[in-house]
């Protein structure tokens, strides 16, 4: 699925209940990280749930694996990875993630007060694009 397809699918979901069920479904379908990979090295510090992010770069393309102990957060990570995975560093830097989350009607999840690690995770993705 591409992010454009996800935005289309989301447009059919009228209620927040359906949206959240869809996000939880995305989270459940995303492979979990094995326990040995959930180390402090890959932990994105968030206040209310734990988020892990592991980058991998080959031929100037970066991909990520992510996980969280909270299921809605994990689903949101699946969306973030759909946005950022398999892109070059310059493509990563060019993504207007706020616009995409606004189209999905999920903008509140990027607000700093949410502290669910999502904003920190996006900052980390952009950081990896700089240093890898």
């Amino acid at each position, binding site marked *: 699925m591409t992010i454009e397809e996800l935005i289309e699918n989301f447009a059919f979901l009228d209620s*927040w*209940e359906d949206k*959240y*069920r869809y996000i*939880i479904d995305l989270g459940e379908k995303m492979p979990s990280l094995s326990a040995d990979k959930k180390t402090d090295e890959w932990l994105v510090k968030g*206040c*209310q*749930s*734990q988020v892990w992010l592991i980058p991998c770069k080959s031929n100037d393309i970066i991909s990520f694996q992510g996980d969280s*102990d*909270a*299921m*809605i*957060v994990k689903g949101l990570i699946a969306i973030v990875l759909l946005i950022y995975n398999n892109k070059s560093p310059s493509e990563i830097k060019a993504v207007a993630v706020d616009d995409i989350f606004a189209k999905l009607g999920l903008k509140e999840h990027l607000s700093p007060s949410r502290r*669910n690690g999502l904003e920190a995770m996006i900052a980390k993705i952009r950081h990896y694009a700089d240093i890898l």
Partner: protein
Amino acid sequence: MYDVDAIRKDFPILALKINGCPNTFLDSAASAQKPKVVIDKMNEMYLHEYSNVHRGSYLLSEEITSAFEEARNTVQKFLNAKSSSEIVFTRSATESINLVAASWGRKFLKSGDEVLISEAEHHANLVTWQVLRDEIGFKLNICRVNDDGSFDMEDFSRKLTPNTKLVAITGMSNVLGTIFPLQEIIPLAHAKGAKVLVDACQLAVHQSLDVQALDCDFLAFSGHKTYGPTGIGVLYGKYELLDAMPPYQCGGDMVDVVTYEHTTFDPPPARFEAGTPAIVEAIGLAEALKYMMSLGLDNITSHENELTAYTIAKLSSIDGLRQIGTAKGKGGVFSFVVDGIHPQDLAFILDKEGVAIRVGHHCAAPLVQRMGYSSVARASLGLYTTKEDIDILVRAINKAKTFF
């Protein structure tokens, strides 16, 4: 007769719709909503009565200085302190505790001394002493709470030694809701020669305080939890203790005679209020305390006790919900987890239903870990909370369970 529906009308924000739902505000332990009288009073001060205090020789300054000092008298009355000179205005309860550490602690604590706190302290009453311990080299002892969240008096008595110079302890846990037996703790501490600082941030919201009856040496609470504004806190200290303490910060409004060579300082409380204080916030806080006193602290307590019993029963009826902190006589703070739902996910769904709770470690991370969790959900009551709020909470939790 405590008419909670009429009382709710005093808090305009409670009538707000949140995501199209009634505002079910169950995060008063983090910060309480403000009654209109507080908001109006503060506006009035800025619109018609504002200038700096303790400085100008003109009408507005004289008027606001007397309003500011009258606010101190109101706090004195709220705490039943012997004198208004024992009331120091600070920025927050956190600053109040830091003031005691920096001023009293640096002067009177030495290597070989002991400071005793409990497992249930907020970070403000834990980290402050850790940092000072690392500076001075005293021993920081931590007394236990039992698995149900109750205070372990035996462990406290064991860890209270002739070397204990300070017991710094909460009156009510912001995670467990446990009300600590201060009436027993304080005389035991005094018998060993220790001073006692009470973190009354949660306690001050829920029941009347009498610092003379308690005989505590210091007591801290914050304005924003007692229905007042942010940016204002209170430190109560026995006068002879305050009088023996050096300044905490230096600047204007706290000095007696200043020359280029030397400065002498004002007596308390001015000695600890360097710089322009939070004038309007102090007056707003006094208005909030007057509001609480007009309702009657005992009436607030009995309303909340009834609601606490109701909440415990309602939460107990939810399958898979575990309450953390079930001590007898606990106050209106309810931490819990629901099997199979991360507290963060729960909060997302509750928010959509207009229910505000807090999740995480609640600035008491070691305590949450000691109780066996890394993150918990917390609902907390205020004087405006109703049974209907609790019913909505329970419905929302049951709804959340259908998602996972």
